C-alpha cells in the first residue's frame, strides 16, 4: 500500500499494532483495526507531516495495547503465552488444507500419508483448536478416512469388473459363472448400495469435521 513513503515512526507504530492485534483479536477484527488506524494516520499526516506533529498524533492515538484492549482483545498472560508464533490462524488453515488433501489424494497412498502426517503435526501444535478438535481431526482423518475410502474404491472397482463380465458374457456366449468368477464376487446391488451409503456417511463426517475445524480456527482466541 502506502508503506513505502510512510514515516518510520508511523510504520513502527503500525507494525506493533498489527502484531499485538493479531495475537489477541480475530484476524478480521485485527485487520480492520489496523486499516482504520492507518487511514486515521494518513489523514493526520496530510494535515501535519512534521516529526513533532507525527509524534503528537501517535501519542493522542493511544498505545497499541490500549487500542487492542478497547477492541475487546483477549488479555495477554505471559505465563500461558509461551510462543506467539500463531499470530494468525495460518497454521490451522494449512493443517486443514493438508488433511483434506490427504483424503482427496487417498488413491496415491504415499502422497496422502505425507500430507496426513504434516497436517496432523500442524493441527496438534495449534493454539486455536481445542483438545476435542484435535482428537476429532486425528480420528476422522486417519481411522474414519483413508482405509474406508480405500475399501470404497476397491468395491467400486469390483462392481465395475462385474458389469464388464456380464457384458462379455452376453456378447461371447461364454458360460456366465466361469467369466464372473474372475471379475467381482459379492457385487450384488444391495452391496453396492451399502457401500454407497457408507461412503456418503464418511463424506458427511468429513464435511462436518472440516467445517467445524474451519470455524474454530476463525474464532478469536479465548482470554487467558
Amino acid at each position, binding site marked *: 500500500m502506502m508503506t513505502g513513503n510512510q514515516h518510520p515512526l508511523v510504520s513502527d507504530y503500525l507494525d506493533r499494532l498489527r502484531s499485538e492485534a493479531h495475537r489477541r483479536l480475530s484476524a478480521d477484527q485485527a485487520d480492520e*483495526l489496523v486499516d482504520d488506524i492507518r487511514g486515521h494516520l494518513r489523514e493526520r499526516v496530510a494535515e501535519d507531516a512534521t516529526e513533532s506533529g507525527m509524534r503528537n498524533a501517535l501519542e493522542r*492515538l493511544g498505545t497499541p495495547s490500549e*487500542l487492542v484492549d478497547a477492541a475487546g482483545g483477549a488479555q495477554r498472560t505471559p505465563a500461558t503465552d509461551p510462543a506467539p508464533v500463531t499470530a494468525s490462524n495460518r497454521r490451522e488453515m494449512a493443517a486443514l488444507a493438508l488433511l483434506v488433501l490427504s483424503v482427496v489424494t487417498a488413491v496415491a497412498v504415499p502422497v496422502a500419508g505425507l500430507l496426513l502426517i504434516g497436517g496432523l503435526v500442524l493441527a496438534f501444535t495449534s493454539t486455536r483448536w481445542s483438545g476435542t478438535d484435535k482428537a476429532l481431526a486425528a480420528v476422522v482423518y486417519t481411522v474414519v478416512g483413508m482405509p474406508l475410502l480405500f475399501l470404497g474404491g476397491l468395491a467400486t472397482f469390483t462392481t465395475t469388473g462385474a458389469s464388464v463380465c456380464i457384458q462379455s458374457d452376453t456378447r461371447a456366449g461364454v458360460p456366465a459363472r466361469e467369466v464372473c468368477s474372475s471379475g467381482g464376487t459379492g457385487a450384488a446391488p444391495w452391496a453396492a448400495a451399502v457401500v454407497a451409503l457408507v461412503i456418503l456417511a464418511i463424506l458427511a463426517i468429513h464435511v462436518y469435521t472440516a467445517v467445524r475445524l474451519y470455524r474454530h480456527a476463525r474464532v478469536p482466541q479465548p482470554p487467558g
Partner: protein
Amino acid sequence: MAVESPALTQLRRGALEHCVLALLEGGERYGYDLVAELSEAGLLASEGTIYPLLSRLRRDDLVATTWRESASGPARRYYALTVKGTDALEAFRDAWGQFSTSVQQILHPKGTS
C-alpha cells in the same frame, strides 16, 4: 494524566457510544471527522479507541458503513445511522435526561449549604 476511576471510564464509554450515534444523526461522517469533533469536545481519552467502538457499533447494526472516494486521497470509510441505531439513540436520550437530572439533584442539592 491522572488515572481515571473505572466508574468514570465506564460512564465515558457508555456516553461516548451514544454521542457517536448523535453526531451521525446529522448525516454520514468518516472516522477521522468523528475523532476530530469528539476530541475537540474532550470526550476522547485516546483518539484511537474510537475505531474499535465504531466497528462494534457496526457489528451491532447500529451503524452501517460505505467506502467513498475522497477528493484528496484514498477512499474513506463512512458511517451512517441505521434504524436500529436511531432507536438506540432515542432510548438513550430519554434515559440520559432522567439520569443526569437525578444525579445532578443528588450531587448539588438545592437549599443546602
